[in-house]
């Protein structure tokens, strides 16, 4: 699966919060259609790196490149347009909107009709809305949420809500999909189902995936490569097998 086509390059990325160094000189390269895991003990700076990649934080120093283009100072919603989508650790759905609408919101940037087109319901409106509708249905179908399409998002069971987050992220046509603890709070059965789903998504939508996860079985079973963080620094990277035997990693997780 791994090609030499680099999607995301992170160079010497650092961020400080008032003297506290959350991430120091972090380097990462992600290749197209790869599935990369980012692991580390609590407070290691994993979510901070996600927030840096998606533009919620601005780094103190360092560079982020997407497809060779420098996006270090691009704001979040424009990064989404360029192809970075994410989910959240604590579920952040649009609760009072239906499942279908949740997905359609993220399709926003793929539509171009203007305000007058929406008032007068021009042909362009119907063409683009239909496209969005079909695309949203397609995504929901892949994730097994089609039968819930008219439910309010808040009424879905927990596992489905997590899947809906992924569906919403997919709707923006991302090159890079960042999943922040997609299996958090799921039981073993649901986790296994999620692993299947993620593989199907990667195949079907041709996305590169970067994920944070605590469930080691999940990470080792699904990722092509793994980056390990501790105290904001990269301590190891490699294939799951290499990571499992890496002394630094074992030390970070289990102590001396």
């Amino acid at each position, binding site marked *: 699966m791994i090609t030499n086509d680099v999607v995301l390059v992170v160079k010497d990325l650092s961020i400080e919060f008032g003297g506290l160094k959350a991430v120091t000189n972090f380097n990462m390269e992600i290749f197209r259609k790869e599935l990369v895991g980012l692991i580390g003990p609590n407070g290691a700076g994993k979510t901070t790196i996600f927030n840096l990649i998606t533009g919620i934080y601005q780094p103190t120093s360092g560079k982020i490149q997407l497809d060779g283009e420098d996006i270090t100072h691009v704001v979040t*919603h424009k990064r989404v347009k360029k192809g970075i989508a994410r989910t*959240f650790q604590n579920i952040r*759905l*649009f609760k009072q909107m239906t499942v279908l609408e949740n997905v359609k*919101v993220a399709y*926003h940037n793929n539509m171009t009709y203007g305000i007058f087109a*929406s*008032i007068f319901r021009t042909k362009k409106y119907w063409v683009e*809305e239909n496209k969005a509708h079909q695309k949203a249905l397609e995504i929901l179908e892949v994730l097994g949420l089609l039968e819930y399409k008219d439910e309010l998002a808040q009424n879905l069971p927990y596992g489905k809500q997590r899947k809906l987050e992924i569906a*919403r992220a997919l709707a923006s046509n991302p090159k890079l999909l960042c999943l922040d603890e997609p299996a958090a709070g799921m039981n073993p059965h649901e986790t296994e189902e999620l692993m299947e789903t993620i593989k199907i998504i990667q195949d079907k939508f041709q996305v590169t995936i970067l994920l944070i996860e605590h469930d080691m079985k999940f990470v080792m079973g699904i990722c092509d490569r793994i980056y390990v963080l501790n105290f904001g620094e990269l301590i190891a990277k490699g294939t799951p097998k290499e990571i499992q035997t890496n002394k630094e990693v074992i030390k970070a997780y289990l102590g001396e």
Partner: protein
Amino acid sequence: MIAKIESNRNNHLKPNYKRYLLNGLCSVLIVVVLSLLTNNLSLKIIIPQIIIFSIAALSLNIVCGCLGEMVLGHGGFMLVGGIVASYVSQKIYQLVMEKNNFSSSQMREIFYNIGNGEVHFAGYILVIFAVIVGAIFTGVIGFLIGVAVLGRMKGDYLAIITLGIGLVFVSIANNLQTIDGFKYGVDGPSYYTRIAGNTPIFASFLILTLICFIMIFKSRYGRAILSIREDEIASEASGIPVKKYKIFTFTLSAIFAGLAGGLYYHFASYLGTSLFSQDRSIELLVFIVLGGLGSFTGTLISTALLTFVSYKLLLNAPGGYQLLIYGVILIIVMLIRPEGLFGTKELTWDFIKKVFKIKKKPKKIVEEEIIHDNK
């Protein structure tokens, strides 16, 4: 299951012309009924007010209900729209008069007759033009304020800022009393450009407002704005330019508040600053909270209800107690139904069908037959 998916796939979104026609006919019917009702003097006063405050409440609802930001100075925007519209219509009236050397009685023949309240075609055009100019001007003001404020502030802080903005507008209007020599205040205007109780004009503006809002909120713009209300961070992370849409909504709201203000001026020929003070802003807020934040039809119904009740109380309740009764009604409604009459739901044809359980039966029979045949 597979069949279900297939049917979903073929489920194309299409313009529902039948529904458009039905809604159009209903609107025309409502306008006709409203204009027939105005033979009664008290209704002639109350119906235009209901319509004007509906427009104002709807415009407030798109910010408070749909975008999820509290605005406490909405009356101020109405005042701006009203003053600009009053200036425009009076200025044009004067220009026409001076250019053609018309006497005031000739002018009354062309535009508006104070004596019998007759409005001529040119009078309507003048008022509509003035009102639209006022609305656009208010929109510009709203846009500028939005650009200055919305990126930095939200929640309680934004509410306080809008409160301040409302106070500033009211204070300016209080101190001006004339604009470029044209009066708009308690002393009566310099020139009468009224359309007073001509309900169809007001009603058409309300329908126009409704069409604009419904169409916008059933498009990608509406979804984006609602998503900001639900979760700003997730919205931004889904590719919605949050700040841009906040400014957009704020501007849209200001435009229609200005429209309402302009209409009010041409209804009453007078803009009392006390009419658009904080009391008005709070009352508009009460309308939308009672109707349901985010529900357009709820806003319409609660505005009509409360305006009517407060007007009747003003006439019939023992002196000084009308506000008390009004307040008690509000408290009771809020205790029983805190999400407002409609919540975020809308009174649509589908909703009515659901309530009365009108279903299409023929289709089901066909399916059963197919199953039977297979057996």
